[in-house]
């Protein structure tokens, strides 16, 4: 041994078990921080890559500027790429609408959401790309010529040079997509092109985009409405001025703080459990002549040694958890995140994990030094345990928990922070699910409409019979139906639901029930609309062709599936029978079709063949799959966070209880020697563990629920008007997990102490 510092290694060898526990705590805390930060980073990268794919990689778009201004903007040093994109004009190919777009090849490939699947980019004004579905439906391929009716009514032939990748927006609108170069588009553009013509800008990396846009506005005298940011992309880059994004930034900052606090508390808590043993040792060093500085150096050396072992393992484990989440993402999201590499590292996540691991370990390690240099840490009790109201074993257990203030604070915080994190992240899951009609069981893959003409109601049965179609169901709609109630008068759009749709609607109810509508009768469902305060139980008076008709609101839905716009009082949903009574029995306004296999184009084509020629089929499959992917991506990462948090909570509780019981082994042995039975010992340890758990859960609920409510108001209620309710399910789950962890955590120490001979137990710590 060349230096007293070498004693650190010696100490670890002798106290192998407690050292191992400290290292394990470091591993889990670093794992928590690394995994959460890396997963967040990966989610951001995945979303960014998706938004680039779907919106284009531009940062801002400018409208209503001259070529000269555009050239001046393009010449700025902070601009990387820029160019014009033209949209808005439409024409016809046969009986089908075609939407035109124009851009030069560079702008098309970088700044737009469009992508060329194959072929070459149009170089001449009479060349074009046509989307894949259009080519399939028209029986064409690259190299063929297509005749298009351009906006001024002329028929013009275009040479198809390549295939434009299908986009959800085209399929949903049931139109073809055609891309030309700038000259080609300008040659056919009509006045509609003005609205769709934008000058898109991508700034160089590291540029303060907000400041750059302000400069551009000021320099060229542009109005605010002329400059629009690409909110999705800038939002992910942390540069958005959008208010929803600003809200999300605040939430993200708060969650980061919460995760860092959790990591800190867990390490500090774990270190405090074996502090007594270490204080005795440091006290011994002081007795042998070590000064405060030397003890401090020794402690830091010890902390660093443990960090050197724990941090790399934690980083690796966090990375593996992240990769697993990425793997899940790829397998669930399919095409959408196919380009997210599997084995990426997140510098932010690794740095955060390592920093937490080293810094907090050293800070936590230093606390016993302060204790040694100050008063004795062999905590003198100031008051006696309460043994008059409770059984002595239970009373002692509770007293053990309550008497160590620091330990009590840290243990309570561990539970409370876990619950708070769980309840915070839970809001994000709800946030994801809100406004995602694609996730509803009623989500249609195809929606058939025929302008203002009603569709034959028997069509649903014929469509349902098509091979590959899972089900088809229709809605009748009547607009501008006059209605009055004690809360005011106006018009509504009346929508009919069949029995199945009414069953599905149960899940979308904000209040009341939809069950009474299935029998027909005098009941309807109102639909939530901002500023409209209809409640379940209100009576509505409809002005129908047959006179006034009174109906009762059985419930209020949060959303409705309808093809027509809402009336001044929104929508009202009723059964088909009631609809016929109120508005007459017409055909369906829209028929929704769900296919068994979303990729089954044959089924979609077969449905089209059944329909009248002037009907429109809105193909929502791609959009639905994109929405579902977005949901699952978020859900994987958020549930990933929650799983990591839950696991860390469990492991931390296990460690803490084990360490706490180990530090009292001698006392337990002494109590057994004077007659404490194994069951009483178990009750005592259980009382201690459950005191921490109950206090922690109570604190977690007291702080977590208002936090949950605040975040809910912030992210959901203000946007969708959904009312906050106590998240009973998730709350029950996390509280149960905490209590179960406490219950399981005490089993091992109890078994260990019970199996140890009394004499051995009493020798511990002597």
């Amino acid at each position: 041994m060349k230096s007293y510092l070498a004693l650190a290694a010696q100490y670890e060898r002798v106290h192998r078990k407690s050292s191992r526990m400290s290292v394990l705590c470091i591993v889990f805390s670093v794992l928590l921080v690394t995994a959460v930060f890396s997963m967040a980073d990966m989610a951001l990268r995945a979303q960014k890559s998706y938004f680039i794919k779907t919106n284009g990689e531009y940062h801002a778009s400018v409208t209503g500027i001259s070529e000269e201004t555009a050239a001046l903007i393009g010449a700025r040093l902070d601009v990387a790429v820029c160019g014009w994109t033209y949209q808005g004009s439409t024409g016809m190919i046969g009986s089908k609408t075609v939407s035109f777009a124009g851009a030069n090849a560079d702008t098309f490939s970088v700044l737009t959401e469009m992508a060329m699947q194959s072929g070459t980019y149009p170089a001449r004004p009479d060349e074009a790309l046509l989307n894949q579905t259009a080519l399939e439906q028209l029986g064409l391929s690259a190299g063929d010529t297509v005749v298009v009716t351009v906006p001024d009514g002329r028929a013009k032939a275009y040479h198809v040079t390549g295939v434009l990748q299908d986009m959800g927006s085209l399929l949903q609108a049931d139109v073809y997509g055609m891309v030309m170069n700038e000259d080609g588009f300008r040659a056919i553009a009509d006045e509609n092109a003005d609205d769709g013509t934008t000058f898109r800008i991508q700034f160089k990396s590291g540029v303060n985009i907000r400041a750059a846009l302000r400069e551009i506005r000021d320099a060229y005298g542009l109005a605010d409405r002329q400059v629009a940011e690409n909110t999705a992309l800038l939002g992910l880059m942390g540069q958005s001025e959008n208010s929803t994004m600003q809200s999300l930034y605040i939430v993200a900052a708060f969650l980061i703080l919460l995760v860092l606090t959790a990591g800190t508390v867990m390490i500090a808590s774990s270190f405090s459990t074996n502090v007594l043993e270490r204080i005795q040792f440091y006290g011994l060093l002081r007795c042998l002549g070590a000064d405060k500085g030397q003890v401090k150096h020794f402690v830091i050396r010890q902390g660093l040694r443990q960090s050197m072992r724990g941090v790399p393992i934690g980083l690796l484990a966090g990375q593996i958890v992240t990769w697993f989440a990425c793997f899940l993402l790829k397998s669930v999201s399919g095409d959408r995140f196919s380009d997210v590499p599997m084995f990426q590292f997140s510098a932010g996540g690794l740095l955060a994990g390592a920093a937490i691991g080293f810094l907090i370990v050293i800070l936590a390690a230093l606390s016993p030094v302060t204790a040694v240099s100050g008063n004795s840490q062999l905590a003198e009790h100031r008051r006696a345990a309460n043994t008059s109201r409770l059984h002595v074993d239970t009373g002692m257990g509770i007293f053990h928990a309550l008497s160590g203030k620091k330990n009590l604070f840290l243990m309570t915080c561990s539970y409370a922070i876990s619950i708070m994190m769980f309840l915070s992240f839970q809001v994000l899951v709800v946030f994801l699910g809100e406004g995602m009609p694609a996730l509803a069981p009623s989500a249609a893959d195809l929606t058939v409409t025929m302008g203002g003409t009603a569709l034959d109601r028997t069509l649903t049965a014929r469509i349902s019979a098509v091979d590959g179609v899972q089900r088809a169901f229709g809605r009748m709609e009547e607009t501008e139906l006059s209605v009055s109630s004690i809360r005011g008068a106006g018009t509504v759009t009346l929508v009919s639901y069949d029995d199945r749709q009414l069953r599905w609607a149960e899940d979308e109810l904000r209040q009341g029930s939809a069950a009474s509508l299935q029998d027909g009768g005098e009941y309807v469902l109102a639909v939530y609309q901002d500023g409209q305060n209809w409640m379940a139980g209100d009576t509505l008076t409809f002005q129908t062709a047959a006179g006034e008709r009174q109906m009762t609101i059985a419930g209020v839905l949060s959303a409705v599936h309808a093809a027509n716009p809402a009336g001044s009082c929104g929508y009202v949903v009723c059964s088909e029978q009631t609809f016929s009574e109120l508005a007459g029995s017409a055909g369906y306004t829209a028929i929704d079709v769900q296919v068994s296999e979303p990729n089954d184009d044959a089924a979609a084509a077969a449905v089209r063949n059944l329909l009248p020629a002037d009907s429109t089929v809105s193909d929502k499959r791609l959009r639905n799959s994109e929405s579902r992917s977005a949901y699952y991506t978020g859900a994987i990462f958020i549930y990933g966070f929650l799983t990591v948090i839950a696991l860390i909570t469990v492991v931390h509780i296990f460690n803490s209880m084990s360490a706490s019981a180990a530090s009292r082994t001698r006392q337990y042995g002494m109590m057994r020697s004077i007659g404490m039975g194994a069951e009483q010992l178990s009750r005592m340890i259980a009382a201690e563990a459950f005191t921490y758990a109950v206090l922690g859960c109570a604190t977690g609920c007291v702080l977590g629920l208002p936090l949950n409510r605040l975040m809910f108001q912030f992210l959901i209620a203000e946007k969708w008007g959904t009312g906050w309710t106590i998240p009973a399910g998730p709350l029950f789950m996390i509280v149960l997990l905490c209590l179960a962890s406490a219950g399981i955590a005490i089993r091992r120490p109890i078994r260990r102490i019970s199996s140890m001979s009394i004499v051995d137990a009493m020798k511990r710590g002597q």
Partner: protein
Amino acid sequence: MNILEVQNLCKVYGAGEAAVHALNQVSFSVRRGEFIAIVGESGSGKSTLLNIVGALDDPTSGSVRIDGKDVFSLSEKELTVFRRQHIGFIFQSFNLIPELDVEQNMIFPLLLDYKVPDKRFVEELLHVLGLTERRKHLPGQLSGGQQQRAAIGRALVTRPALIMADEPTGNLDSKNSQEVIALLQSMSAKYQQTILMITHNENHAGAADRVFRMADGVLQDLGGARQ
């Protein structure tokens, strides 16, 4: 009548050539109310003997009968209750529970039995032990002598058949040591308690009715010591 009968007690630690015979064929018996002192060098097996007789440790062979009951034939649960009700322990390092005050420490074995303590008896003990004024004090607020007196009170509160005292004066100064020995002596007489006490101090052994000497795991009865 014998309250304690020990027959051919052996305790071996380790095996083969490394085996250590801590107790070797130890046999003796003690009558009710007797005050026995066990003396011997460190490592001679005194504490091992006390731990086994007090059913805190298992013997390798032999038997211990307390009040006619073979303690090692009892289940773990029965043994715990038996120990609580029939044996009192006094340790060198007092082993009071730091979270409980003097009175709570004394009645602790009764609380473990979920019994309501006999208030008069507790008051009497506190008085006899000179702890009435200190009854609400925590162990940390007491001197060593006071702590050991509280430990003696704890050992007496269940009126056990047998009290085991392992070097009860080991951590005390000579004045407090004298007091504790006098107290044990008077308790033995007053409450007809049988006491088995380990001590290093030959003078303290002089207070006992009989003295045993342990050497290399073998027990020797030195006979009466009290003058």
